[in-house]
């Protein structure tokens, strides 16, 4: 598997049609291999559009997006996308959903599945159908489905947006643990400042539509956990980001 460097070069996207709309204009950024980067910005600034282009699902109007110096033209298993909603296949049980991307031998599939069921603590629920699980558990399974094929890049489009605050904190801990164990390049879209500081190595603040990078903030936090949310250092980052987000 490759390293997982993401590079956006003068990326622009215009939604076609009678209500033509420029979502992104000259977006430039680099995500280093194994780095957790958050794209933070107001709703409608084109964060998700950038992510969909990075996954190869839509093509940029101008500019290009490269993964490991290769231009992205089509979706692939190497670049996994996690949506706002879990989008598990309702006709498959949890184990079948998690193992869905695998094309490995039966023994290998079984071993990988056990590993991810254990990482997500979903062993007991492997025979359950998605609708029988809470939204948080479903999103855990969806993350496992994205990680299981060992991609070099993970794109996450506000995966915890629809989850209540308390459960979201639990899922933050879970994702921190998962990324620590399975070091991956992650591009994480969010408009939640706390979430961005807690999870990321670097935050790219975007301008309102048409979105472009306004500011870059490096986050240096040791022993990341939700306990940091109340610490002064966390508050300082938060203040800096709020200033950065302010519309000029």
């Amino acid at each position, binding site marked *: 598997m490759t390293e997982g460097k993401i590079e956006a070069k003068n990326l622009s996207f215009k939604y076609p049609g009678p209500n033509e709309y420029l979502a992104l204009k000259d977006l430039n950024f680099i995500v280093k291999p194994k780095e957790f980067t958050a794209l933070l910005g107001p709703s409608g600034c084109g964060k998700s559009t950038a992510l969909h282009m990075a996954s190869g699902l839509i093509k940029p109007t101008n500019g290009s997006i490269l993964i490991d110096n290769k231009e992205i033209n089509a979706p692939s298993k190497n670049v996994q*996308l996690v949506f706002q909603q879990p989008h598990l296949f309702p006709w498959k049980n949890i184990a079948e959903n998690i193992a869905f991307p695998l094309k490995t031998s039966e023994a290998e599939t079984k071993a990988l599945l056990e590993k991810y069921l254990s990482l997500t603590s979903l062993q007991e629920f492997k025979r359950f159908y998605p609708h029988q699980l809470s939204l948080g558990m479903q999103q855990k399974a969806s993350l496992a489905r994205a990680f299981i*094929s060992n991609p070099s890049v993970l794109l996450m489009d506000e995966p915890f947006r629809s989850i209540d605050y308390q459960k979201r904190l639990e899922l933050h801990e879970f994702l921190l643990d998962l990324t620590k164990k399975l070091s991956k390049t992650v591009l994480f879209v969010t408009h939640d400042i706390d979430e961005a500081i807690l999870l990321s190595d670097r935050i790219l603040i975007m301008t309102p539509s048409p979105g472009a990078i306004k500011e870059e903030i490096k986050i240096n936090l040791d022993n990341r956990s939700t306990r940091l949310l109340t610490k002064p250092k966390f508050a300082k980052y938060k203040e800096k980001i709020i200033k950065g987000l302010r519309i000029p």
Partner: protein
Amino acid sequence: MKKSLLYLFYSALTFLFAVSIWEFVVMAGFINANLFSAPSSVFSAFVEMFNSGELLNNSIVSLYRVLIGFILGGSVGIFLGILTGKIQSINFSFGQLMHFLRNIPPIALVPLAIVWFGIGESSKVFLIMWSVVFPVWINTHAGIVEIQKEYLWLAKIFELNNFQTLKEIIIPAASTFIITGLRIGIGLAFIALIAAELAASNSGIGFLISNSHLLFRIDKMLAGILLLGVFGLLADKIFVFLSNKTIAWSLYDRRQN
């Protein structure tokens, strides 16, 4: 288990109640028994036809026609639904023709089907197929159009080819719609069967009813008509049972049918 037994008990009780009222009304002379036989007479006719083999032979013929017409119509309907649901140009052209054709009631085609295919099996199977194709097509089409784009995106991300996407994503995602179409199709198949058998046939339940009419055997006519109700109900129950087995994941199995 307890609940389903209770459900069966209430259903049986309702049937028994309806039959008792019917028997009473005829026996008390409120209705002319020559025009509307009592359930006891209908039952006797039923036993008579059963013993002579008339009932079984005609039932087998009718059920066979329904089965063949349903399988053919269902398959064609699903295939066309996938085509119009997935390929916009086909939907805009062929789909419109289908919308026109689906408004032609199969009963209107009975004389034409007899001219084309004769009074043998083909005309019956054709008419049943005609009845089944359209509800299955339109439901399959709707099911495919309604598939969330994220499922199709995931198919691309997981690098599925067209056949795998159809098998793994599109058909399962549209399956509740397809099953609804097939279920509607079963009911319509029986309607088309009887229309065809009443018009021109020398076998089947429709023929039995029509022949009994010529002999003025109202009891036999009613026995045939009631048998159709039983067949329709049984076909629907078997279908629901089988679909619950295959799409246990959906809400379908939690509805009371």
